[in-house]
């Protein structure tokens, strides 16, 4: 195996004009990826904050959404961007069903039981996908946005990434506004703060839990449809993103949407810059290292209290 030696690393060479451009390019890519990570993390942080459950099946919801986009595209020639609402609604429904079928039964169990139920679900969904659709990599090659690029000076960015990032920003802001402004959102906040008090105030906490799970699914469903335009689709494609989402949620502070947004951005940037400076094989190691450093300064995450 060949690896980039340390001397080859740009850290050891003088930055020339071109290198500046490369770094600008990498930062742009990192930020765009960061917004998508943020949308995935927002979904996870909602469940984590409201119900105090780590949803291990989060990445598998993402994978199912990517497959939905793929099948919509290959069977009905529907562009992933048009299929986005379908993916979102489908994963919303799967989220609600997950709550009703599984989480409702384990939510009052001690300790880690609920987490293990979601772990079982993730194992089930991952292997169901493999059983139904084989482990082969699939791609959506000729959607509206794939293969096209925008040039800003000397920075070249893929249209699909830009569209995905913009859509992620819009959806993240929409979720924030929903939580902050609407009655249901306020009920979600109240349930997160104290379930029993919320119950006493006449909030149907079971309904709130179901909505939270659905909303979390909707976030990840939208993210899946957006990512399907430029990522390979295979049964384990979600697993990596769920681990990254754990880290970004913990970095931002559990249950904090703003935290998840910044966590996602930091991870996107760390991955891109770390991969460039130390070699791509270490990019996730850098991400996890940054989490460990951040958590030293803010033991409850950037925005946790």
């Amino acid at each position: 195996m060949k690896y980039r030696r340390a001397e080859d690393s740009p850290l050891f060479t003088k930055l020339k004009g071109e290198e500046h451009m490369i770094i600008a390019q990498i930062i742009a890519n990192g930020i765009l990826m960061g917004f998508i990570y943020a949308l995935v993390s927002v979904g996870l942080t909602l469940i984590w904050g409201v119900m105090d459950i780590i949803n291990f099946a989060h990445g598998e919801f993402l994978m199912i959404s990517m497959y939905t986009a793929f099948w919509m595209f290959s069977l009905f020639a529907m562009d992933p961007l048009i299929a986005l609402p379908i993916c979102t609604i489908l994963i919303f429904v799967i989220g609600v069903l997950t709550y009703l079928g599984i989480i409702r039964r384990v939510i009052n169990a001690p300790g880690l039981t609920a987490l293990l139920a979601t772990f079982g679900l993730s194992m089930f969904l991952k292997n169901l996908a493999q059983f139904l659709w084989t482990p082969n990599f699939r791609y959506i090659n000729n959607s509206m946005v794939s293969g096209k690029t925008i040039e800003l000076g000397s920075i070249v960015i893929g249209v699909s990434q830009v569209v995905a990032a913009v859509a992620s920003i819009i959806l993240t802001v929409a979720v924030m506004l929903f939580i902050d402004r609407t009655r249901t959102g306020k009920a979600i906040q109240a349930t997160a703060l104290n379930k029993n008090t919320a119950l006493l105030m006449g909030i149907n906490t079971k309904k709130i839990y179901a909505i939270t799970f659905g909303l979390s699914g909707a976030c990840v469903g939208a993210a899946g449809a957006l990512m399907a335009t430029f990522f390979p689709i295979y049964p384990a494609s979600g697993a990596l993103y769920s681990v990254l989402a754990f880290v970004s949620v913990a970095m931002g502070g559990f249950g904090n949407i703003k935290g998840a947004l910044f966590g996602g951005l930091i991870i996107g940037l760390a991955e891109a810059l770390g991969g460039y400076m130390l070699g791509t094989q270490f990019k996730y190691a850098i991400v996890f290292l940054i989490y460990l450093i951040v958590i030293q300064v803010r033991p409850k995450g950037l925005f946790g209290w």
Partner: protein
Amino acid sequence: MVKNKKILFIIIAILALIPIITRTKAVLNAIILLLIFATLGEAWNIITGFAGQTSFGHAAFFGIGAYTSTIVFYRYNITPWVGLILGGIIAAVVAAIMSYPCFKLKGHYFAVATLAVAEIIKQIFVSWDYVEGATGISLPIIQRSSGFAKRLFYLQFNEKIPWVYICLVLFTAVILLCSYLENSKMGYYLKAIRESHEVAESIGINPTNYKLYAMLISAFISAICGSMYAQYILYIDPFMIFSLDISMKIVLLTVLGGVGNVFGPIIGASIFIPLSEFTRIKLGGSGTGVDLMIYGLLIILITCYQPKGVIGIVQKLTEKSKKTNVGGEGKIEATSGN
């Protein structure tokens, strides 16, 4: 305590008798894996069940143990028995290094931090040429005609029965250590820390030190299990050995067996390992993942219908004798502290 010893004796006697009753390879294989994972569960139980610090990164210690004994044998032809102890020491050192920054975190933050550490270690091993990187290592096989003494020295056997007894000895030693620990001063200190960090501190316990001791013991035992596992299956690679699935398997069988109880891991392992082996043997050959699909479904069903773990059923059945068993029903601190 007397009653616990009786149960322990019965469990060990049953496991020791199985190779005499049947020599089916699949059964013996399941018993060996069961014992290795039960021992891992005991190790995890020390830090999570007793001290209340949820770790999702025990695959790191397991993997360090597996790699140390393998490398020592593969590169320098030194007996795995030396590698086993060395692996334990290295894992304990790594545990000490990671514990210092991690112990000020609480609940899920600690859990995610241990997961992050395990992932970092995995990434390092994947791109480290000295340990053959992502290719993994196949252990060199000693001559087929070697005598038993030599086989024992190099920890490689032609048949499975010696493995059953080696793993049984390891498991017995660890479970005795854990029951001793549970009723020792340190065990009570750890449980005090689990129940309330602040109160434990206020009555003069140094939580950081005791959590560190628990972590060191836990890491040492996990590493020994890793060495055993590597010697048993004779092939390791970083994706398999440092995977989140291994960490979660340990959590799974301990929690569903009964966390914080010395019998939890063996009960959990007795259910989950044969189950996973059975589905794998019956359905795994197709390569379509249907075995893991069914296994996942079974996990969901067990968690949904018996959320307190299998030990919950036992406690329900033996309501009276419950008082003698107060090893502490596992209450893990899992709140984010809001």
